[in-house]
């Protein structure tokens, strides 16, 4: 019986660039910026890294294919380097590769680094085209990411019979909360407090999602060096351990079979269930101290509260409006500002979430530091509600 990787891997160090419209740098500069912080935090020599995983999604915009952009930028000395790509869950996928390598005993110290340099397309939003199968290109509708998630909002309203204005208000609270947190974070892209009125009066991007229901698009990189708990303990006093690392990928059911009701994300429910089993969590609402969710759109965050079993089905709006997920709430969510304020350099996002949870667990978060968190969850979602990839990681203090 497979036993998972709970407590078999420790995070030795992490790094994360300032996210934003980094007109000043190339992709390779971002890799180096994240790596230098990470290696310094780990306190090891670059030559001690035995294997690396590189995450990048839109290879056509800046980096190109293969694992070579990472190995040549850092001049990694002919060690195994693997490129992973799994839509917007790419960052966590790189982390998973490195963790599994250590857990298996194949390597003692491994690097995971994800980066994306998106702001060279010349237009707003994610780069389009070139990333779907030939059949999909011929038959898919003319959609962009916000529209794909707006469909989730339509179904949520329809299933629970919620008027658009009520859903909009709850979604506004989500974005206001994330902006308040991002305001406190020097690495965030958008550092500005907003009001519910700002959100409700913003121009529509994809009905019912307005401008402030959508995360930004930015450049950034984040990295982690992982090792065995034994090595970590020999080098550090405070240790963060990987409690669970799960991924669920669509079977194609949501897109083509009529049973899925469209109001939630199937892969998230599967990944969360498995992650709780792996981490030994019985009651996530009581046991988790911090959440970093994939808030590409406010509706995604709303549905995820229910999909990971924190809010009961159809009741997320109540928790949101009660302030349950605010910085001073029961389980603060997006304490760093989330994708909402960091933007979404695809390959980096999953690692950026882990970076925040890791730092919160180690008490390094300054003004936005939570009081004594022990257990945190990251949720990294790729694709669209009707066809998704979901990675969930749970980190805990030793």
């Amino acid at each position, binding site marked *: 019986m497979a036993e998972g990787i709970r407590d078999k891997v420790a995070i030795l160090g992490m790094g994360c660039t300032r996210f934003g419209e980094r007109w000043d740098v190339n992709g390779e500069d971002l890799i180096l910026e994240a790596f230098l912080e990470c290696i310094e935090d780990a306190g090891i020599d670059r030559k001690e890294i035995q294997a690396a995983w590189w995450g990048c999604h839109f290879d056509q915009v800046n980096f190109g294919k293969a694992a070579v952009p990472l190995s040549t930028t850092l001049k990694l000395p002919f060690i195994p380097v693997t490129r992973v790509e799994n839509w917007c869950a790419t960052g966590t996928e790189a982390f998973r590769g490195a963790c599994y390598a250590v857990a298996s005993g194949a390597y003692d110290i491994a690097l995971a680094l994800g980066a994306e340099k998106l702001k060279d397309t010349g237009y*707003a939003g994610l780069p389009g*085209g070139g990333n779907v199968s030939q059949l999909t*290109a011929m*038959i898919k509708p003319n959609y962009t990411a916000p529209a794909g998630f707006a*469909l989730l909002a339509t179904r949520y309203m*329809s299933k629970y019979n919620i008027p658009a204005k009520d859903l909009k208000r709850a979604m506004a609270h989500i974005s206001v909360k994330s902006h308040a947190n991002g305001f406190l974070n020097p690495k965030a892209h958008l550092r500005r407090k907003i009001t519910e009125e700002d959100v409700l009066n913003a121009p529509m991007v*994809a009905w019912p999602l307005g401008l402030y229901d959508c995360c930004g698009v930015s450049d950034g990189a984040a990295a982690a060096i992982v090792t065995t708990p034994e090595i970590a303990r020999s080098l550090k006093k405070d240790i963060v351990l990987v409690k669970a690392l799960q991924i669920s990928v669509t079977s194609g059911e949501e897109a*083509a079979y009529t049973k899925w009701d469209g109001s939630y994300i199937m892969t998230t429910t599967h990944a969360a269930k498995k992650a709780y089993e792996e981490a030994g969590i019985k009651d996530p609402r009581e046991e988790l101290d911090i959440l970093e969710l994939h808030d590409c759109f406010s509706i995604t965050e709303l549905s995820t509260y229910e999909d990971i079993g924190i809010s009961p089905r159809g009741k997320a709006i109540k928790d949101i409006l009660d302030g349950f997920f605010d910085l001073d709430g029961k389980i603060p969510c997006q304490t760093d500002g989330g994708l909402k304020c960091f933007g979404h350099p695809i390959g980096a996002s999953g690692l950026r979430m882990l970076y925040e949870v890791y730092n919160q667990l180690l008490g390094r978060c300054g003004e936005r530091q939570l009081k004594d968190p022990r257990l945190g969850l990251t949720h990294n979602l790729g694709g669209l509600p009707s066809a998704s990839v979901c990675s969930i990681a749970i980190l805990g203090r030793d």
Partner: protein
Amino acid sequence: MVGIVSYGIYIPRYRLDRKQAFQSIGWLNPSTAAYAKGEKAVANYDEDSITMATEACMNCIRDRDQSHIEGLYFASTTMPYKERQNSVIIATALNLPEDIRTADFSSGLRSATTALLNSIDTVKAGSSKDILICSSDERLGKMGTTDEMLFGDAACALLIGSEDVIAEFKGSYSLSLDFVDYHRGSISRYERSWEERWIRDEGLNKIIPSTIRGLLNRFNLRIENFSKILISLPFPMPPKRMAKIIKTDPEVLEDTMITQIGYTGSPHPLLMLVKALEDSRPGDRLLLLSIGNGSDAMIFEVKDKIRDLRKDMDFKRFLKRKTSLSYEKYTVFKSLAQADLGLRAEEDIWTRWSFMWRNRKTILGLVGSRCKVCHTPQYPPQHVCVNPDCGAIDQMEEYPFSYRRGRIFNYTADMLAASIDPPAIHGQIDFEGGGRYWFDFTDCALDELRVGMRVRMSFRKKYYDEKRDIYGYFWKAVPEKEG
């Protein structure tokens, strides 16, 4: 007995109000004020002669046994492709058998009646059982011209056969004349026409009576023998004047519908024929006359079977189902003015012909698969059944979705996607009988949409690859207002 077995029309949803058009562009050519009356039908930006003809064909053969169809003829002067047979694209979209005869009839405004005469001859000769003919045009006049005022877009289809005939073909007479009233060279987008007074006085006023005379003489008939006379005139003319020219009662002359839909080019005589058939009684004798570098005159006799033919999508329905289009939007839809769709629109779309060939049924025909074990329909076609409780491997049969109605499962209006008509509206559709896919919606507005609303599928232009001059087609969902 050979003749018309079924018919179907298609009139696009948009109407351009001619008065509004004149207010916008009349300053350029004030004499067009004479035509600034009524409205004309305008194809949506995602429609062309192929898609409109496909719609008309679907309305013609929907719910009918299609196994007798052994040919498809397409007539148009505005075919998207010069080389790549346009009728084959329509036949593939209709999911007709591959062992049929297809042909394109083009380059003259008589092309539809020529196709009709040819199909009748083919059936008469016993070479084919039924032949489906269709015609559609979307001719363009330059901005501010009379042509722009008059030309409308529409399509018509007729099923020609020898069983269950509703209107029997009784004979024809043709004149072929190099009378150049309108012309377009092989590289022109726009129509060029000669002086209207010459077209009328030297052309219509002489060619029409001499064609009718020829027809009457050939079959030993008199003009009084006809209950309805259908003359496909390219511009409005008072019925009294035409009646005088052909020496008949103005009452028997059928309306040209130019004030309602415009002069639609090739399909126009067929549309007039269907309009007349819709309110004909058994025994009526019709004279149909087309004009274009000569003239085709034909005689049809309405049969008892017409009583059994009921069409949901008739003229009344199509004329009621309309939305006005501003002149400004018209110029963008027709690429008369170059609108900026943003950098996102510059994405390259590769049409890979070897891939298109393998997947022609999936893409052009909207053919999915159905699991023979659990009967779940699925699109696109699968090898492994998508039903998680089944999962059977390679137990699929072909399952066409194009005639199936569906319901809106979810929807949105995308302001970020590059579109000629933003926002781009799309959503998942659950088909009646099973199956789900995510489609573009067309011919609708966001505020009319509701979850659960009924849709029908419509064959549309999905993209135009400017670099390689390729038109890509696929299916979109058209929401239907209930009741």
